[in-house]
């Protein structure tokens, strides 16, 4: 029998390794989430007018008042935002200070949305051109950011808040309060 040397086995091993890499990567679940690259960075300077008369608007100054907050990017036209409304209410009951950023929304639509699904927000700023959304690296609605007392973005939750996310977000708020 002919003896096969390194010249045969080495390229074959390299080829097998490449196939293995492809097989591994192809079986990994794909994530469609675009994560913000702003985690750990300060909130950019901004000032949004009040989206509804019953709550004040939102500016970067409000986020530097020493108290950690949840910043919820939402809209009245967003269906998953309805799904997360009870969880936001639970977070508020647990003592979280939640500020809202309403993306491309009309006042009358927002008022209907808040009347129907509750208003857990201490402030709601109107982001008519998605400017703040782009500035903080948010790719859609709903998203929830944990902001520490100095106005630094510390965590991003993409998608609607599920029941199991409520204690996790409360824990994040406690962590950044330290």
């Amino acid at each position, binding site marked *: 029998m002919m003896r096969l040397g390194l010249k045969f086995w080495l390229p074959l091993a390299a080829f097998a390794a490449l196939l293995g890499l492809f097989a591994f990567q192809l079986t990994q679940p794909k994530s469609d989430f*675009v994560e913000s690259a702003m985690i750990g960075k300060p909130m950019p300077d901004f000032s949004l007018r009040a989206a509804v008369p019953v709550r004040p608007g939102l500016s970067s100054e409000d986020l530097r008042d020493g108290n950690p907050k949840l910043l919820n990017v939402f809209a009245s*036209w967003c269906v998953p935002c309805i799904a997360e409304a009870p969880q936001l209410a639970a977070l508020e009951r647990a003592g979280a200070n939640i500020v809202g950023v309403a993306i*491309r929304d009309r006042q009358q639509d927002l008022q209907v949305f808040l009347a129907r699904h509750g208003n857990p927000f201490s402030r709601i700023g109107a982001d008519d051109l998605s400017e703040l959304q782009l500035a903080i690296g948010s790719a*859609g609605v709903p998203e929830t950011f944990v902001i520490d007392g100095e106005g630094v973005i510390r965590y991003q939750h993409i998608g609607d808040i599920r029941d199991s996310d409520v204690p996790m977000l409360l824990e994040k708020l406690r962590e950044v309060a330290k």
Partner: protein
Amino acid sequence: MIGSFRHPRESGDPVGVERFARSPVRWVPAFAGMTILLSVLAAPIGAQDSLPPAPYAYRQLDDPEQEARAQQLMETLRCLACQSQSVADSDAPIAGDMRHQVRTRIAAGEEPEAIRAWMIERYGDYISYTPRMTASTWPLFVVPLFLLAALIFALTRRLGRKP
């Protein structure tokens, strides 16, 4: 009746009610009504948002040179809502808002590459279709050069051996 055509006036159906009731055309108003009803019902789900597009989402800049630079940048920025399209291709509201931002910034004199860098700072490399050499992408640029060098080396050795 089937296969024979009688003039409505002869059939004792002066306005054609009977003929209409038998023809497939009678479904048209029902379909139309259903379509309108369904589109109204679907509106809250299908609706992206309630505001009109941003001013420069669908409006070109007046200066053609600036517009060309904006267009070039928008074609190489990824739409966040529909991730295989560029911002220039997409009708998603967030893509419209990104076009507005690109156009207004270029009109204000900002360089396209500065705007791209701003986007990458917020969303990472994923937002840009133009490849960059980074800590994780450098092998993509280096390996082809290495293979080419290896090929030239092997060829020259093999060809050089022959008299």
